[in-house]
């Protein structure tokens, strides 16, 4: 792979750090008035999702990581692997449970996801920002309580548990923001 110099650092650039692929989040030049310049860099380790800070000497080179994001359709799981397909080429990729990670609780078959490939294999999966899912388990709805008020946990068809308003019932479809896990609204009733 190519190398990137600190001059080329910018948010979104993927580099190798201590053997793991990382994505640069922030890059700040530090230059003491009379001293040598360096770069304070915030990176996300793409394997662990952990954010770390690292200091590079300005001009230092770092190995590029063979990482790319691709839009793929989620097809099915056999319990061990989760299968995703590139819509243009129909090429299929098998992601491990580890790679699917938290996306697992939001995925319905046919959803379009962003699959991050590292050396050609799925490294992580980002679900759609918004999903519409059916409530499969919750306390009975309180009729008339459509104003504001409390909320209650509801289990969705994919297994995720979100907080929903008290008036909702099992069988109803809700819209959820997968980035925050927050209920966004009712889509329809059965």
């Amino acid at each position: 792979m190519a190398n990137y110099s600190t001059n080329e650092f910018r948010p979104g650039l993927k580099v190798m750090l201590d053997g793991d692929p990382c994505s640069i989040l922030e890059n700040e030049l530090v230059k003491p008035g009379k001293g040598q310049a360096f770069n304070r860099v915030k990176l996300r380790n793409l394997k662990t999702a952990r954010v770390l800070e690292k200091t590079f000497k300005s001009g230092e080179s770092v190995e590029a990581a063979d990482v790319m994001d691709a839009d793929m359709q989620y097809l099915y799981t056999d319990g061990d692997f989760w299968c995703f397909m590139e819509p243009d080429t129909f090429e299929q990729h098998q992601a491990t449970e580890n790679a699917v990670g938290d996306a697992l609780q939001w995925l319905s078959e046919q959803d379009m996801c962003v699959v991050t490939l590292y050396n050609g294999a799925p490294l992580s999966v980002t679900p759609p920002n918004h999903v519409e899912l059916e409530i499969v388990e919750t306390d009975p709805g309180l009729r008339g309580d459509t104003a504001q008020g409390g909320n209650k946990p509801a289990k969705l068809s994919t297994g995720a548990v979100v907080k929903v308003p008290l008036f909702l019932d099992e069988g109803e479809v809700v819209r959820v923001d997968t980035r925050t896990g927050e209920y966004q609204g009712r889509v329809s009733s059965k």
Partner: protein
Amino acid sequence: MSDWQPGMSLDRLRQRSRVLAELRSFFQQRNLLEVDVPVLSTTSVTDRNIESISAVMSGSDLTGYLQTSPEYFMKRLLAAGSGDIFCLGKAFRSGEAGIRHNPEFTLLEWYRCGWDEHQLMAELGELIETLLPAVAINKYSYAELFAQYFNLDPHQAELSSLQKLAVEAGSSAWSDDTRANCLDLLFSVVIEPQLADGLVLVYDYPASQAALASCHRDAQGRRVSRRFEAFLNRVELANGYFELTDRAEQESRFAEDQQAREIAGKPAVAIDQRLLAALESGLPVCSGVALGVDRLLMQLEGAESIDQVMPFSWGRC
């Protein structure tokens, strides 16, 4: 295209104008002479860590350099007998752009004849107090801070132990680096972010980072430079010296700089012979300090980026 607009709000534009006026009035009240020295010259600094911006002089064989600070011209005025002077103007440094850097910036520099660096630090404190009345002011020696954060004497520690700490704080790129570079990294990455709120003055810098300051023995008998730095809310704000007046010593430091530049593959810069001639003729005993005005405004305004306190930062030019 929205970057035709200034990065700063019009409120801040007015605040900037007020602060520039207050800075001038502070020195005028104290009878310092304002000098507007050139920003374009035929020479520049040899400093191993500062890159000048050169200017094409069409139709001439000469290369011009935008000045990285007004220091050399001001010292020539001091040697010519100007007495106490200040300069509020632009300085230029290549390759420095970021949230706290802009290649063109506003620098306030002043010199006090007959003063030592501690008197000048006190005046710097008074200046900051006029703009930030309740500001906390703390003062430490460089060695005190290293003792506090690393339990180590920065002036006498083995180079290998500094390199080891620098590798931990930075990367393996520091494993064979110089004393000055390792200390700089440790100071900037570990100590600076932990400094107290308000103004922090740090004096007696290592002799290896003397630049244009004279050196002396500190109370423990260690050779240190009479250089100081000021930090405002953990941001480097000013750098000052009890000035080196010895021509021969200055010339040999410039020559070392040139050598370091060559080793690092940086463009060669000629020594400013007119400055050396001024030192030869006699620079009065004095102290001087340079303060980044845009950085000061960032702190006064609580701005996150230098772009928010300048009419147009480099990305809009």
